[in-house]
């Protein structure tokens, strides 16, 4: 970007139908958008983001505005407060816009979360925590329950369960 040029504005429309104006300096960090900025600005287009909502885009923009050292701090804050869903939204958005550093940082954070989840005693707790449902056949579910009764905590059962080939 040449400093002589006036900073341009890139417009986005989020999934919840809000229009966002983002400075070019930030927008160029979106790898997906980068190459089309010239065209978009010249023609006054709005870029639709069908799977990014306003709240998430705001977070992504905030991230991109920060310098590397401040990002650490921002991430730390978000890490402590953000429930899973916020992180997932952020990750989906970062992936869609291709902000590599953000993808990396959020992935790291989510894996930390999954490690914690893995320590829960029952697989149903795990599923509840990450808000997904089991889609195993009932006999597999029953097997898992039986194993847990005899062997104790879930995480110990699983190795046996996995190597037993029940799920193949």
């Amino acid at each position, binding site marked *: 970007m040449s400093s002589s040029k006036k900073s341009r504005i890139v417009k986005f429309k989020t999934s919840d139908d809000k229009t966002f104006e983002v400075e070019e300096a930030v927008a160029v960090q979106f790898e997906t958008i980068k190459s089309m900025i010239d065209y978009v600005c010249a023609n006054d287009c709005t870029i639709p983001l069908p799977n990014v909502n306003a709240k998430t885009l705001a977070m992504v923009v905030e991230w991109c505005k920060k310098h590397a050292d401040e990002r650490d701090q921002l991430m730390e804050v978000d890490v402590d*407060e953000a429930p899973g869903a916020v992180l997932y939204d952020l990750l989906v958005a970062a992936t869609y816009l291709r902000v590599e550093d953000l993808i990396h940082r959020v992935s790291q954070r989510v894996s930390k979360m999954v490690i*914690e989840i893995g320590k829960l005693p029952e697989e149903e707790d795990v599923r509840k925590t990450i*808000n997904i449902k089991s889609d195993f056949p009932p006999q597999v579910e029953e097997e898992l329950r039986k194993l847990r009764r005899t*062997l104790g905590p879930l995480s110990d059962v699983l190795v046996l369960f996995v190597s037993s080939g029940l799920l193949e």
Partner: protein
Amino acid sequence: MTFFFHYFILNHLSRKISRRSKRRGRRSVRPLSQTTKEPSAAASCTTILDLPGPILIDILSRLPFKSILVSRCICTTWRMLVSDPLFASMHRSRAPALELLLHPKSVSCASTTLHWVDLDCIFKTAPPVDRNERRKTRLNSKFYLPLPGCNIEKKCLNVNTSSSRSSFMDCYGIVNSCNGLLCLSEPIYNNPHIICNPVTGEHISIPRSEEDDMFCGPVISGFGYCRRSNKYKVLRLVCQPENMYQTMAEVYTVGTASWRSIGCEPFDLGLSLFTTYLNGVVHWVSDTANSPAVIVAFNFEEEQFSLISLPPHFGETHKEKENLHYMNMGVLGGCLSVCDATFWDHFDIWVMKEYGDPTSWTKEHVICAHSGCLHRPIKFLENGDILMIYNKAELVAYSPVEGYFRYLKIDGVLAVFEAITHVPSFVPLADAVGGDHLNVHTIKASCSEGESSEGTETLFLVEQGKPRSASKSTSFWAVDDGE
């Protein structure tokens, strides 16, 4: 709009920061069980399954071994992701930690079960303080090895599950571990016969020929990986009946049809001890009648044998032959290492700092212990402690800084165990080894049908009392404990 957005961000972040500062110093990661109880908009919005596949694989590949296994049992999507080749390669690229597997094995019988030791969990728990307290930890995580003669037949598998312990006649021995794969050898003559990945249960057979039954004496073998050609190879040293006094070396490249001879083994290994694999080379300590003890190495890439000298003082007369069983060899911190226990009051751990350079042998640790039995170093724990197996029956963590030991007795049906260090791999066996002559089988050791935990062999780790200090040890204390 922009105004709204700035207002939102400022408000949002400042609130977080103020809360954060209050909480700082307590815990950095909030327990997840709490995060969901919060009445958030989470119910209606994104779940972890909405993440793009490659991203989710990236996340899962960062998990420790145990969590990966947990994630396989959450739903079919996760299970598929963990079986994905991208997952396997990502997991491998993250340099997964060295895991410890215990294999119950005595002179007369061995188990078909490998017991995984969750070192993180066990050694992060403080030892019991009270001298009389016994803490028993059950090792529930097991992997199964295939049984000889029945790769796929159902009836044999039933035998397997009813008694996981087998007599020496019908169980495989473990040659060595390499990149997440184990090479298994037949009973009695130790002829290498199976390559398996215990984590995925996949295994393939090494072709046999009729001459395989006519070897004179046990076979010496090793299993390794060639980085340049991306091939796995098995080496065996055999005595043919027609030439009893000459050991022949044969190599099998995994995925090909047969063994091929690479000529005579030049160094007359004699009794080969302590098979140790490191970076494409397998090593043994040679024990021959006339020459001083030496390390014989075989490079799988070049298919060449070479000699590596032991630490300087091993040439002394008292180190020879009869004392060889008071030493051992292994890999410690990525270096070839030799443990010398020929002294009555201590043992030395030597490390070859620069691989292949005998002048780089360094005496890294001198550990005072009136044991009389052998400590075999396994690996460094996260906090710098050295994990060892003592007398094939106890796990020992030794802290070089504070000079104390923690002994955890391994309790099982069999009394002696071999410790196998293994880097788990999720790469499908066919992808890992390549080649045309592959017939991959999967172990299906059913654990259903009313089989209780007593049906399979269970190991416990028993820890008692206070950790013992090395320097203040009274003589032979090791004997009175754990009994």
